[in-house]
């Protein structure tokens, strides 16, 4: 029980339930399963991105280029789709994954081979990838009209009454769970975040592991590139501009320590859901959209304060033990 209370995911979950409860008092239908399923679907892309970002943050790095990667990859697949509507969508998804991965590899290689801090590398590629999106598209948008019905329709296909996008998110969540808790690679992400020196001594190649983390975030951003353009049926240079900070905010709210080594799949998912609920609920309960920014800002600060409380080192037990004797 005590362990349960220490678990920050439980607290976050409670906060989310409370939030849903509060919203329901103002707007009854919010807590309906149908609506919650909708919110989940609306938050899917953010969740997937947050999971990718989490892996990077675990290794004491940060990937600021995810949103730009998403824009670039989204533009690539949208342009391919516009030019060759016959290319099957699953292949386009593979292409998106591949392009995203390639951009991730570029980030990762700079971090690994040259040892440049990730924040610097991705600050650079943040602008480079978005600029490249402009260059390949000449600045032109790809609109709904130019996209094939299959391209737009795939993620909207219903399976068991739930859109495919939600299923994709669930599958990604499950794979990240296995990756992070059940594989040596997953554990080494944690290890190098907790103590990089010790990881070297334990035979983990810190540089290469970081590289892999960037590959994963790139891959995930690439897949989301397709999901994003087909969801919002537009590919432009400006899509998801500034979204990197939302992704990081989701991670932070989810209790992932920016100092590395601490975080869980559940946390990232809940953190994203928290933001998703706020943004979908505000218009419903008649709060001016101008309040949204301040509210999510306060939520981030609150989350950090609470997480820091939880992490604060307990004093040693020596004295207590002595008293007990």
């Amino acid at each position, binding site marked *: 029980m005590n362990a349960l209370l220490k678990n920050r995911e439980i607290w976050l979950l409670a906060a989310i339930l409370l939030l849903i409860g509060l919203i329901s008092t103002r707007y009854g239908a919010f807590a309906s399963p149908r609506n919650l399923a909708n919110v989940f679907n609306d938050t899917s892309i953010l969740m997937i991105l947050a999971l990718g970002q989490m892996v990077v943050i675990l290794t004491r790095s940060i990937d600021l280029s995810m949103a730009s990667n998403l824009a670039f990859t989204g533009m690539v697949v949208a342009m391919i789709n516009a030019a060759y509507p016959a290319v099957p969508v699953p292949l386009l998804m593979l292409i998106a994954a591949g392009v995203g991965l390639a951009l991730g590899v570029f980030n990762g290689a700079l971090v690994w081979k040259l040892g440049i801090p990730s924040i610097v590398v991705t600050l*650079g590629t943040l602008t480079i990838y978005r600029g490249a999106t402009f260059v390949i598209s000449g600045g032109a948008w790809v609109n709904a009209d130019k996209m094939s019905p299959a391209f737009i329709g795939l993620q909207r296909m219903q399976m068991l009454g739930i859109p495919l996008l939600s299923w994709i998110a669930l599958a990604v969540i499950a794979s990240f769970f296995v990756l992070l808790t059940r594989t040596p690679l997953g554990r080494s992400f944690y290890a190098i975040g907790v103590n990089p020196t010790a990881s070297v001594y334990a035979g983990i190649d810190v540089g290469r592991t970081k590289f892999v983390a960037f590959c994963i975030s790139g891959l995930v951003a690439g897949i989301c590139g397709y999901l994003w353009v087909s969801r919002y049926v537009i590919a432009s240079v400006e899509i998801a501009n500034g979204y990197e900070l939302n992704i990081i905010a989701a991670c932070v709210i989810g209790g992932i320590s920016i100092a590395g080594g601490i975080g869980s799949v559940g946390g990232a998912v809940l953190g994203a859901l928290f933001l998703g609920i706020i943004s979908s609920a505000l218009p419903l309960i008649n709060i001016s959209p*101008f309040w949204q920014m301040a509210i999510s800002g306060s939520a981030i600060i609150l989350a950090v304060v609470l997480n*820091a409380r939880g992490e604060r080192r307990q004093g040693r037990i020596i004295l207590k033990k002595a008293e007990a004797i």
Partner: protein
Amino acid sequence: MSATETPHGRHIPDRLDRPLRSAVFSWEALLIAVAISIFAVNSFASPYFLDAWSLSDLTFNFTEKALIALAMALLIISGEIDLSVAAIIALASTMMGMAVQFGVGTSGLVAIGIGVGLACGAFNGLLVTRLGLPSIVVTIGTMSLFRGVAFIILGDQAYKGYPESFAFFGQGYVWWVVSFELVLFLGAAVIYYVILHRTSFGRRVFAIGNNPVAAQFSGVRVERIKFILFCLTGLMSGIAAVLITSRLGSTRPSIAQGYELEVITMVVLGGVSILGGAGSIPGVVLAALIMGLVTFGLGLLNVPGIVMSIFIGLLLILVIALPIVWRRLMKERPA
């Protein structure tokens, strides 16, 4: 320095002769070379570049961000970061706009702009130092909060009607083509140079960035200094808010959007280690100049801004990667 043997041990020299080479290959030298080449390319590529007014207009592209970058450099050297600077500008500008509605005069407006900036910086500083929170996440939060408050106040409105004399700060010239903004920036650069490189305060900032615990044990008031640095960053953002508001002559909550990353890019390009503990003010000044030269030069060729940002991004990575690759090549060569 005397070279006599002490009774206790062997003599340790102050410094081994610093080879000229290390000065030649220093970061600042690299930046100077880059700046000169960009200047040359610009003069070659556009007939309009070498013109006093053009060069003067060029400085407006970076002075406001560079003012913040000076304080940000100190903050990053101390191992912290502030992502909320652009949001501080928005809030400070909104408050100034509000004051205008109450008929506050120019000097009052300046005081309000700077004061709000300082207050926001102090708020960040309190959260980071009092509650011991990581600054990167705190300021991601306050970034939304500060701008959010500006949005709440202004919504879809704009404030305008700033007094005539207020325009001087962002549009005025001190002498011929030399703008007030440029003079202010150069003055601030000198002050920050002295603070960082010539005072014990600056030395303590470096110590904190390299090892905050050891610094604390050595009697450095780590929290106080970090708090001061956040306040300084807020203050500089407040000053930048005055300049931008004056230059635009109006306030919208979306003002200065995305400036934070440009400021940080400037600082990092200037050779400040993002991990803290190293960096210099001349480097940051040069980096600001380089960014101004690149954006203005490409602007003269009507290259879209987004393409310029590719150059900035590449420059950032290249300038940081080059010395690393160079060192590696030197090492591989047999001595």
